[in-house]
């Protein structure tokens, strides 16, 4: 198993994570504040996740060619749903009394968002991020088909040359990666939750 592919895969996941976080949060906050577009935003991210990954990657490839960028865009589009949904849900479930109190103290909309709403919603948002990361590890495997490298290449090659042991190693690497991300983020999640109580 090529170590380089493993590193590439981690890169894919981490870079996508950053963009998923940024785009997801923005869409979530927009959806929370503007009820009119909320339905549309949620529908679009839901549809994006419904489209088969390879189909999505194929279409993106038409514009960006067989590159790393294509795979990152694909992963980001595919893993937006949990982040957007949890951002909206997290913000929605804040007790109106707290928001009223914050407004009563003279906070503006933006201040309130940054100082009160966002911190209170963060544990829920973080759960969304966790789901997104773990999903993206699996999606990354498709990257190889559209030239993005990663462990998908290792697996594809292994299948083509019928090498069971490499296939096993690559799979193991993926599973361990998912578990580690999941484990670490669950730890953080628990801490956040504990703080809230």
């Amino acid at each position, binding site marked *: 198993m090529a170590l380089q592919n493993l590193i590439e895969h981690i890169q894919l996941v981490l870079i996508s994570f950053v963009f998923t976080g940024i785009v997801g949060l923005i869409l979530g906050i927009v959806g929370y504040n503007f009820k009119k577009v909320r339905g549309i935003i949620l529908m679009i991210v839901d549809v994006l996740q419904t489209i088969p990954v390879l189909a999505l990657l194929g279409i993106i490839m038409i514009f960006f060619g067989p590159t790393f960028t294509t795979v990152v865009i694909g992963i980001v589009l595919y893993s937006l749903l949990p982040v957007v949904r949890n951002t909206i849900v997290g913000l929605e479930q804040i*007790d109106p*009394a*707290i928001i009223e*109190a*914050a407004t*009563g*103290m003279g*906070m503006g909309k933006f201040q309130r968002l940054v*100082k*009160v709403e966002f911190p209170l919603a963060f544990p829920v948002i973080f759960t969304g991020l966790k789901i997104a990361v773990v999903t993206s590890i699996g999606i990354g495997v498709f990257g190889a088909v559209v030239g993005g490298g990663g462990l998908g290449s290792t697996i594809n090659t292994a299948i083509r040359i019928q090498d069971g042991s490499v296939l096993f190693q690559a799979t193991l690497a993926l599973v361990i990666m998912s578990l580690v991300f999941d484990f670490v983020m669950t730890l953080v999640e628990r801490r956040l939750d504990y703080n809230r109580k």
Partner: protein
Amino acid sequence: MIEFKHVKKAYQDNVVIEDLSLTINDGEFICIIGPSGCGKTTTLKMINRLNKINDGEILIDGENINNIEVNKLRQGIGYVIQQIGLFPNMTVAQNISVVPNLLKWGKEKIERRVKELLKLINMPYDEYAHKYPRELSGGQQQRIGVLRALAANPPIILMDEPFGALDPITRDILQDELKSIHKQLKKTIVFVTHDMDEAVKMADRIIFMESGNILQFATPEELLNKPASPIIKEFLGKISYSHNANDLTCADVMRTKVFTVNRKRKTLECINMMNQRDIGSVIVVDDDDKFMGIVTIETIKEKGVPGALIEEILDRDVKTVLINHNAKDAFDEFYDSKLDYLTVLNRNKTVAGIITKTSMAKALASLVWGENNDS
């Protein structure tokens, strides 16, 4: 007739009921009451075998309940619980017909029965039969819960704090309805409650339990006039035994269930908590639960900054009274203060309770009219 003979119940090594014997006659309305953890619910659930007994026997009309197939037994005993437990996937009519269905009654017979029962509680069939539980109010839901228990016309109904989750007015109405149903149908009803007013109002006889034992099994009158144990006396409330208004202390007129917060709580958290409980101010205590002061929602809105601790803005200059203080003095003091309540402290400065207008009025009313008070 329901008979308990030397019944014992233990959870692992923890014996909750050691040796319980009692007899309930046909058509009686029996209330089981006692402090929480006294074994009243455990006792109730033994009758329909939701709790297994470890020793002794329970007989219904002379037959050991362990010799009856368990589901047959339960189909023959109505059961109502505090959480209501209507099946949300079924309509009102379907909920009521659960047991008749299990007993394989015919379709027409079931429908006739459902109509008959809804009539009993004045809920028109056409309007309610096809509604779902969540489309009903809490009081309506529990009415249906009672009907579900009555549906197959069982001679015995078990009720586990059935009205405990309802608001006082609805509870009162449902109590009256149940009483009239009992009068009409002559069922044997075993009714668990922790509310002495409810027990006195409903029961033909009251079983008072404590630590798995029966302290007294008597009519309400007898229990009130001749409580067999100091624990019962205490449960009935000290008020009815204090004959002179001048003898009353703060302990007699206060409410004991008080919501306090630790000084290290954040202001926003406190607002949230107050909101949930629908109160305008909270009592702040230190790490040893000792009284520090009071914070009102207005103060927080005025002075609070996000992330600030509640102790930073609390009002320490608040009038308090000691628990053994004379109630009359406390009353005067209370009317001078602008607060909605007066905090009562124990000698060690922990919070004993609060005196509110309601708690005061209740105490005085029971003194004047001799009613019993359970708070």
